[in-house]
């Protein structure tokens, strides 16, 4: 099990167990993280699974693909630590990954 810390826009922490191989978005949906919508179900075509990864974890992730960068253009309030959670594969080394969810996905 890989532990993920979801912090809501209101600052509320929700811990969730993820399985290596699934995506961060899938883990969020399973655990009913409300601020993640994922309208396209992981197709990288909606940008409603936008999250802010905590700085210390950013380097441990693979860099976003060009497709993800393009889709981030459709997210709002994009920051340097913005990512689309459906494009992040959970791995064992991500145990403890901490991220914030935005107030709205629009």
């Amino acid at each position: 099990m890989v532990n993920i810390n979801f912090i809501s826009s209101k600052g509320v922490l929700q811990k969730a167990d993820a399985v290596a191989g699934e995506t961060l978005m899938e883990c969020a949906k399973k655990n009913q993280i409300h601020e993640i919508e994922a309208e396209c179900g992981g197709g990288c075509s909606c940008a409603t699974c936008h999250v802010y990864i905590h700085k210390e974890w950013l380097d441990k992730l693979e860099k976003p693909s060009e497709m993800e960068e393009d889709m981030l253009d459709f997210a709002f309030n994009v920051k340097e630590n913005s990512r689309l959670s459906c494009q992040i594969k959970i791995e064992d080394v991500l145990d403890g990954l901490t991220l914030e969810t935005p107030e709205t996905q629009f």
Partner: protein
Amino acid sequence: MSKLIETDALIIGAGPVGLFAVFELGLLNINCHVIDILDKPGGQCAQLYPEKPIYDIPAYPMISGKDLTDKLLLQIKPFSPVFHFEELAKDLKKNNDGTWHISTKKGLNFHAKVIIIAAGGGSFEPKKPNIPNLEKYFDQVRYSIDQIDNFKNKDIVILGGGDSALDWTVQLNEIVKSLTLIHRRDVFRGSPATVNKVMDLRDKGEIKFHVGQVKNIIGSNGILDAVQCEKKEGILEIPCDILMPFFGLTMSLGPVEKWGLNLLEDRVSVSTETYQTSVPGIYAVGDINTYPGKLKLILSGFHETALMAHAVFKYINPEERLTLQYTTTSSSLQKKLLAK
């Protein structure tokens, strides 16, 4: 009022289920017009995952959203459905004789014996950015252009870096007083020709371009005056008469909500015998409907259209008997299918 378009059935939504509804209705000689707010058929399959494979369409071990749409279009061709794209079905009225009148946002008018709602996850609408007070200035925040004259000699601010943002930048630039394009990075995603054109306009100083994001707008007495663009270097205030945000599309139930149908959790309740809604003469199939055990699958939507079509036939022709015919063996069905 524009000319009234007559049809047996008016299908709202050209997603996979709306398309197959044309087929099932067509077999029973019920002709169809189809409305969709998108500029193309296929619904979610075309808009959200055209290149992704689907594995649970019977007899297709694997098929992409795009191929499924193309094959459905081919399959329904014999019934010559008439499509009306980029049209939002908006107002619904019942006529005295029990038929229906539907008008679209842009002003098309339909007269139909029955309405088939195949609106899926709802209509695709532009995302509205989460900027405080945006709704206060709804008149000055535009997601499309109805009358280009309204943009003449105005200060326009366009947000985004995709096709829509770039296309409108190029088109509007000629007639406006000033045009500012704001995007979160200096990379654009659009057809190379349009991207080059925008770069060229920027280099010549004909448009202004900022890397940044708009998080606040400023106005007084209900009139929008300026936007605040957050840049690395600080906040920049840019005069603005019309703001055009282009952050893609999202699905929302839309006008269907206001048609007086029984809804359950934003879905239209139907009978599983007829797929009729709580209002006689209005049917709902595919992702938009709900009933005990509903699965939002294309497969289930297809099944629903067959039962719906038989129910519609009986509704339109109460005196006639309808027997089930197979497309394999029925000569009259084959005549229809092979006619064109």
